């Protein structure tokens, strides 16, 4: 029996929830608003909310000063590349663990998860050294590989939890009809797995985009992505709130939008299926 809810109660809930939502979202909203102000208006006291002279000047200044497009491009390549590479390696592994499980499958899965818990700082210097020896320090390829390895356990887990929900009978039917392993994967499994693969791609792209230990420590000028671009704004130079806001807005906008689409996968992906 559904509980009857009075309109008053519902209105009260709505008011409280919207207020809290607004407070939590406020720093992001304020950053976006400030990015359209002049520097003088950005620091005016009392602060101005909406009635200022909207300007796009900050965006062009930021682009000129620090070549935003280059950092953006690095972020896209590194986050996109590491995610796609990771999924390509993880799909076969997750497929075999979900459909041809053995006694050791569970141990392998847990072991993969355990590599995720290795604190990055514990292996900072070895990775640094290996990168210098291989000549891939401050290169997109090096960072792509590291981020792929960091996220690989999550990718395998997410795909595994999705694949496990595909009924095995369908695969057996295909096998009975004489489908080869290749055909089975290509024509039966892939179409059913596409939604799961898509959400895995989405969440891991976001995680790679925001990763801020390796991207800060393994890049300098050439391969630096947006995380490093923003960190370069940490020492203030005169009036800069509006420019900082413009730079921040540009760095978070793509992922904020993607993130809203992937809230459900976030729970599933980051809890390794332990909360559904």
């Amino acid at each position, binding site marked *: 029996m559904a509980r009857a809810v009075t309109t008053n*109660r519902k209105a009260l809930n709505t008011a409280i929830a919207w207020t809290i939502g607004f407070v939590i979202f406020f720093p992001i909203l304020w950053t976006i608003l400030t990015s359209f102000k002049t520097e003088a208006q950005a620091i005016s006291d009392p602060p101005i909310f909406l009635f200022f002279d909207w300007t796009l000047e900050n965006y062009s200044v930021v682009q000129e000063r620090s070549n935003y497009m280059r950092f953006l491009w690095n972020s896209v390549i590194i986050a996109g590349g590491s995610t796609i590479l990771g999924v390509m390696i993880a799909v076969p592994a997750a497929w075999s663990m979900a459909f041809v499980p053995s006694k050791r499958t569970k141990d392998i899965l847990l072991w993969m998860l355990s590599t995720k818990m290795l604190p990055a700082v514990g292996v900072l210097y070895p990775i640094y050294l290996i990168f210098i020896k291989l000549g891939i320090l401050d290169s997109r390829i090096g960072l792509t590989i590291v981020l792929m390895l960091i996220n690989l356990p999550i990718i395998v887990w997410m795909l595994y939890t999705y694949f496990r929900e595909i009924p095995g009978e369908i695969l057996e039917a295909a096998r009975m009809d004489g489908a080869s392993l290749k055909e089975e994967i290509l024509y039966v499994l892939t179409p059913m797995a596409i939604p799961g693969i898509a959400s895995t791609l989405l969440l891991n792209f976001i995680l790679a985009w925001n990763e801020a230990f390796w991207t800060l420590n393994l890049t300098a000028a050439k391969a630096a992505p947006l995380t490093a671009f923003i*960190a370069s704004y940490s020492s203030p130079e005169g009036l800069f709130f509006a420019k900082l806001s413009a730079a921040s807005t540009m760095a978070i906008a793509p992922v904020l939008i993607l993130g809203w689409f992937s809230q459900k996968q976030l729970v599933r992906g980051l809890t390794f299926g332990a909360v559904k």
Partner: protein
Amino acid sequence: MATQHSRSAARLMMAPAVILLLGWMLVPLTMTLWFSFRTYLPLRGGDQGWAGFSNYTRFIGSSSFWPSVQTTLIIVGGVLLITVVLGVILALLLDQPMWGQGVVRILVIAPFFVMPTVSALVWKNMFMDPTNGILAHIWRFFGATPVEWLSQASMPSIIMIVSWQWLPFATLILLTAVQSLDSEQLEAAEMDGAPFLSRFWFIILPHLSRAITIVILIQTIFLLSIFAEIFVTTGGAFGTRTLTYLIFQRVLESQNIGLGSAGGVYAIILANIVAIFLMRIVGKNLDA
């Protein structure tokens, strides 16, 4: 039925992922272990030979070690307390009937998708700046002297920033758990006249315990190694140097690889203690 053929094919398909992760784990780990027993100063004479356990004793004996462990634990504990308590309250609130639930959820989730360097910088400058930050405006409005947040109240400020980033994650997971609550049981308790607090304590909280454990463990793993937030705001000054940051400084700033590696081994041990508990819980879920 899996045939012998498909079984060996399966092994082959697993191989790339397993080999890559094995290499990723073993190679740097072995190197860190090796360096931790060496006197290794790349800028001052390179590898100067065997050091025994001296790096380990020196790292623990240094005056900055225990404060850094303490700082780490306070940040992790503070953020966990805030995110779990507020997360439970928010999850229960968001589960209530209301208008525009989807929009509110989007607003609440948003901070999780902001990259750490951005949220740290935005908070540091636009909110916590002692002359032009929003908080300074508010303080002056009430006639108070603005606080220099990141130097006078550095730890609460950092805990605040990090909690803002992680509250969405806790809320989202707890909300998922709240939604799977058996509402008939709650209604029955309500009809029997159980007040909200005892319904919360005896029905809701036990139901959420597993989700809360998961939130605590996963956040602990990420929080033990927070870096960007400190790198951008205080640079480890004003008592905010965590274990991660201390090791980072030993390795990259003072270029003492042996000492830094010994610190790295301590960090790995600390993380593994947490990890073991998480694995138990996740592993149990696999059997179900």
